């Protein structure tokens, strides 16, 4: 985790850049959705590179770089290395950048076959066979999870960085927030396959509050602190889905393999080949 020492640039405004790889744009849009806080941000930093918002595209180096999207073409590999070199603090935002995104589903299948399904002339497509998180390629100082990221967390992240404070977000599971909001548990009282117990908090328990089981879009809960890796007990929840909810193996696999399919321990659920595998 980065020590967000941005004090050096107290006089000169820190330079902010936003880059995009394979993604839906939603996380960048979250920046534009900061309402009036966007104007405050604009006063506090020099937005040096953010093509979605400005045609003024300045070269690096940058003090803070936000990266959206996953690495999925050969060109991306060079770009991300260059971006890292240009960036003092590099922060990945969203499920794509932090875990390969929904499109990482292709890591579990034969990507060539996928190309044929969508495009008529597969020979035109230049794509890697995998969609991978940024951290698999370069050092990442901080990650903001979620698909899309949560506006309040984004605000807190930026606010902390500007104040020279190391951002920190809780890794525990969603259920705490769900209960604080007095939502009725959709799993216990509705028999729905809620991923909340093994999903990282951050969204504000949106799905249960909408009467829908959580589908894990904030990724697996991180039960370790500070750094000894205690993983969410996805296997136990999967077992419960099988016994109490009578779900089939395939249904259970599909449940875990959606937005954060490429991150342990979701990755290993129902994936015979990769069972017990590490982060790769």
């Amino acid at each position, binding site marked *: 985790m980065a*020590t967000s020492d941005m*004090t050096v640039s107290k006089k000169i405004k820190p330079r902010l850049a936003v880059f995009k790889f394979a993604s839906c744009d939603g996380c960048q849009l979250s920046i534009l959705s900061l309402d009036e806080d966007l104007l405050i941000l604009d006063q506090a930093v020099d937005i040096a590179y953010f093509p979605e918002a400005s045609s003024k595209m300045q070269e690096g180096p940058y003090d803070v770089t936000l990266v959206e999207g996953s690495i999925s073409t050969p060109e991306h590999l060079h770009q991300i290395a260059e971006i890292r070199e240009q960036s003092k603090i590099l922060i990945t935002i969203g499920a794509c950048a932090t875990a390969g995104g929904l499109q990482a589903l292709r890591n579990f299948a034969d990507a060539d076959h996928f190309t044929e399904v969508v495009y008529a002339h597969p020979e035109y497509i230049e794509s890697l066979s995998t969609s991978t998180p940024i951290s698999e390629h370069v050092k990442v100082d901080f990650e903001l999870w979620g698909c899309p990221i949560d506006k309040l967390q984004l605000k807190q992240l930026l*606010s902390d960085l500007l*104040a*020279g*404070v*190391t951002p*920190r977000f809780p890794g525990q599971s969603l259920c705490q927030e769900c209960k604080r909001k007095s939502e009725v548990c959709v799993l216990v009282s509705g028999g729905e396959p809620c991923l909340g117990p093994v999903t990282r908090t951050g969204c504000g328990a949106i799905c249960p509050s909408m009467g829908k089981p959580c589908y894990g879009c904030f990724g697996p809960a991180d039960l370790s602190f500070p750094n000894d890796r205690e993983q969410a007990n996805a296997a136990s929840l999967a077992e419960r889905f099988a016994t109490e909810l009578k779900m089939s193996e395939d249904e259970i696999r599909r449940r875990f393999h959606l937005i954060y399919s490429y991150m342990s321990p979701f990755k290993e659920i129902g994936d015979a080949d990769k069972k017990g595998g590490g982060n790769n």
Partner: protein
Amino acid sequence: MSKKACPSPASVMRSNRIHPARIIEKIEETPGIYTYRLQFEEQEVADCFAFAGGQFNMLYIYGVGEVPISIVSDPEDAHILDHTIRVVGRVTEVIGKMGVGDVMGVRGPFGSGWPLEEAKGKDVLVVTGGLGCAPVVGAIEYMFRRREQYGHIRIMHGVKTPRDLLYRERFDQWRKEPDTEVLLASDQPEKTWHYHTGVITELFDQVEMNPANTVVMMCGPEIMMKLAARHLIRRGLPDHALYLSMERNMQCGIGLCGHCQIGPYFSCKDGPVMRYDLIAPFLAKDN
């Protein structure tokens, strides 16, 4: 701000409110460890704030959070409030960047500190380990300011490697005090290390002690304290004469948030300095 008589002590001391205080002096003890002298912004608070040796405050850093930090200044000079802080993480990093003129919040004082009263007239053994133990420094200085009230004072400090020895000058200074011994040990050898090489408990065997008339104050990694305590008990010290500083996660400092539990105790209100005979079963265990 000079200190006047306090009109209504309870309104300040029992309010559990955060009071703004300004840094009037910052001293770098060693890189990454700083002592801050604070002055309350509100006259009434400055007048009324009183603490006992070894208590701690919750220091509030604007927009970031609160951390428990021991008061190291002398309780009899209650208008002076010193905190020695090591930069380790999110909150303390920000504190490290603060300087004279900056304002933080102070909520306290809480907890019970070193047995400085009980130790009067007795020998004192201070056992510390690891990367400097700020809270006990205040206690040592307190005793030296009243040197005649205490018996023999022996300070033993163990480090992993000589590089971990902070406050080297302070140890040298203390060594010059009357009837005082300072013994240092390093687990790992090094050419420039003129002191003991090995674990601190080995030093216990090299010194004479008066088990019936000694109070021990310990501060450091729990496993070190546990081994040291066992050793001292074997040397005949009564288990209730051993006092340990037990740090736990604290969010409130007043026994309500539940984080600082050690078995039946709350480190914030039953401690942080706790008697060995009470906490022995819970020491150095995941709990």
